[in-house]
């Protein structure tokens, strides 16, 4: 049995406290009115913009320019007000999807009847324990968006579907059969319920299998995992349209679901690997050997490249044909998010490719931890790139609020995952493949 070290527990509480303080600061310092925005913009652009501004004001001091200026300020106000919300949303979504990625990996291992992984099942179940609190938090953020507490989703604005309204948007109105709040939130509730139900029942059956005299529970889990994977791939695809792609409701991409999946799947595997290494280093996983670690590293390597393949396929197809309605997505990212947009490729592809290609390196703890840290940071930035351009635009910054949101969810993640790990023995007793797994050797 694993015992949660008090040091790690304190560490997770400190992370959460720092996170709450930082997030609170983010909301507190967000501008409330247009006047605030004007001061912020003036402070941001010091001399040269001011001079231009004055010239602008004296030359064309007509009502039209003034109205445009007001509109611009209102736009920036919404972006700045979105900043803390988007920071919390990106971090919350990222950590929830990590545990969902680990759950998908776990289900695949069950269905594939993998002979190497059963010694890691309890670690995976520990990581997927975060799915419940994580998805509830994300659901609450989605609900708050629906109740107009924030402006994360532009298609939720009042009057976007009303002909003649000042917010009327013909393109969004055309999609309102799919993008309307009740249908959208019901879909979210169904997906979250489905994933959590599988996670709950699968864990229950796995524990029951330990005490059973036959393999009924194992077979149940096998069938349930197969059914879950079918549900998962459909729900995951729709989830990625609903929660991520719909922040840019004028844009669409067909491989987006796969792309999002690859991103959080590799993060989930990386977290499995890192938690395993942590527990192993504390002496809790006696049956885990370097071959298990090697296999996880191969998955980290392979799925990183799979992510890159989808990233590039999405980018290159849109870049190549350059259709205006699709390409704006990448133009805003390359212009305003150049460093994070291409930085994500360096962190998620070039670095793991060069480091994890070596067989010996795939077994060395510090190399895997280093590569894993870069991969996780890179995929956070990947989600940052997906959400931020549509919500905060060029007002983005990875500052106090963004880092605080990561720290808060990291603390919560550690707390939930390691608490869950204390609840059951770390090695399943009667899994039919457990002996093979204990002697796994590559």
């Amino acid at each position, binding site marked *: 049995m694993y015992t949660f070290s008090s040091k790690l527990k304190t560490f997770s509480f400190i992370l959460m406290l720092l996170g709450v303080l930082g997030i609170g600061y983010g909301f507190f310092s967000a501008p409330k009115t247009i006047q605030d925005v004007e001061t912020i913009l003036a402070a941001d652009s010091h001399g040269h913009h001011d001079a231009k501004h004055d010239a602008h004001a004296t030359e064309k001091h007509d009502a039209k320019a003034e109205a445009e200026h007001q509109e611009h300020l209102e736009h920036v106000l919404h972006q700045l007000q979105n900043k803390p919300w988007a920071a919390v949303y990106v971090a919350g979504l990222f950590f929830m999807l990590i545990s969902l990625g680990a759950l998908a990996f776990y289900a695949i291992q069950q269905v594939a009847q993998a002979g190497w992984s059963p010694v890691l099942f309890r670690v995976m179940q520990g990581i997927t324990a975060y799915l419940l609190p994580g998805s509830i938090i994300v659901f609450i953020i989605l609900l708050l968006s629906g109740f107009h507490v924030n402006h994360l989703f532009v298609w939720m604005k009042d009057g976007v579907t009303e002909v003649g309204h000042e917010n009327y948007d013909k393109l969004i109105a055309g999609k309102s059969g799919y993008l309307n709040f009740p249908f959208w939130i019901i879909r979210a509730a169904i997906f979250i319920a489905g994933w959590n139900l599988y996670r709950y029942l699968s864990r229950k059956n796995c524990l029951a299998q330990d005490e059973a005299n036959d393999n009924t529970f194992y077979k149940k889990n096998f069938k349930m995992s197969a059914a879950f994977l079918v549900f998962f791939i459909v729900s995951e695809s729709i989830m990625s349209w609903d929660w991520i792609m719909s922040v840019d409701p004028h844009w669409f991409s067909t491989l987006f679901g796969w792309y999002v999946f690859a991103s959080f799947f590799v993060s989930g595997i990386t977290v499995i690997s890192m938690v395993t290494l942590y527990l192993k280093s504390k002496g809790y996983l006696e049956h885990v050997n370097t071959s298990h670690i090697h296999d996880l590293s191969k998955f980290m390597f392979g799925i990183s490249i799979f992510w890159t393949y989808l990233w*590039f396929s999405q980018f*290159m197809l849109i870049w*190549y044909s*350059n259709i205006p309605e699709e390409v704006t997505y990448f133009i805003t990212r390359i212009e305003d998010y150049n460093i994070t947009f291409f930085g994500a490729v360096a962190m998620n592809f070039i670095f793991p490719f060069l480091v994890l*290609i070596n*067989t010996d390196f795939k077994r060395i703890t510090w190399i895997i931890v280093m590569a894993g840290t870069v991969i996780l940071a890179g995929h956070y930035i990947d989600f940052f790139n997906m959400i931020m351009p549509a919500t905060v635009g060029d007002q983005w910054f990875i500052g106090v609020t963004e880092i605080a949101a990561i720290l808060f969810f990291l603390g919560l993640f550690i707390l939930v995952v390691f608490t869950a790990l204390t609840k059951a023995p770390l090695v399943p007793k009667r899994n039919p493949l457990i002996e093979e797994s204990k002697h796994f050797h590559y």
Partner: protein
Amino acid sequence: MSSTKVIHALYNDDDILMDAVKQTRKAHYHIEEVFTPFPVHGLDKAMGLAPTRLAICAFIFGCIGISFATWMMWNIMINPTGGWPQDIGGKPSFSYLQNMPAFVPVMFEMTVFHAAHLMVITFYLRSRLWPFKEAENPDVRTTDDHFLMEVSVNNNEDELVSFFQKTGAVEVKVVEKH
């Protein structure tokens, strides 16, 4: 007269062969070669063979491949003095980076092509395999269902024969090798 003698110990089971290899190594007899009809997992480790460096070769060949692809397409599509940087459908041919996404499929395939083919050729060269090469089976049964270990003899013929008979060999022969 410079003929050397070798022992040919034949086995009909890979587990027995593995044990025999381990015993032979322990007794410090020099194993010249082991012939098997199929790959025996762990045999290289038991024999103490150095790990292969083919993967390192493949990585280097891949680097050559991507360099070649980049060089080729830069010279054809971009190079303002030697190539033809024409406007084809509005694609930006001003610098390599600007038009790079269009070149990536070629760069990728060339990398894989060079890594794969040059590594295979390296393998053929290093293991001396070619179409009209004379086969080197010491015993035809080793391609079907027998395993053969060849050990050099240094004035200890009787000792070796009795040693190998005890390792579970189905047949032990002393062969003159020229």
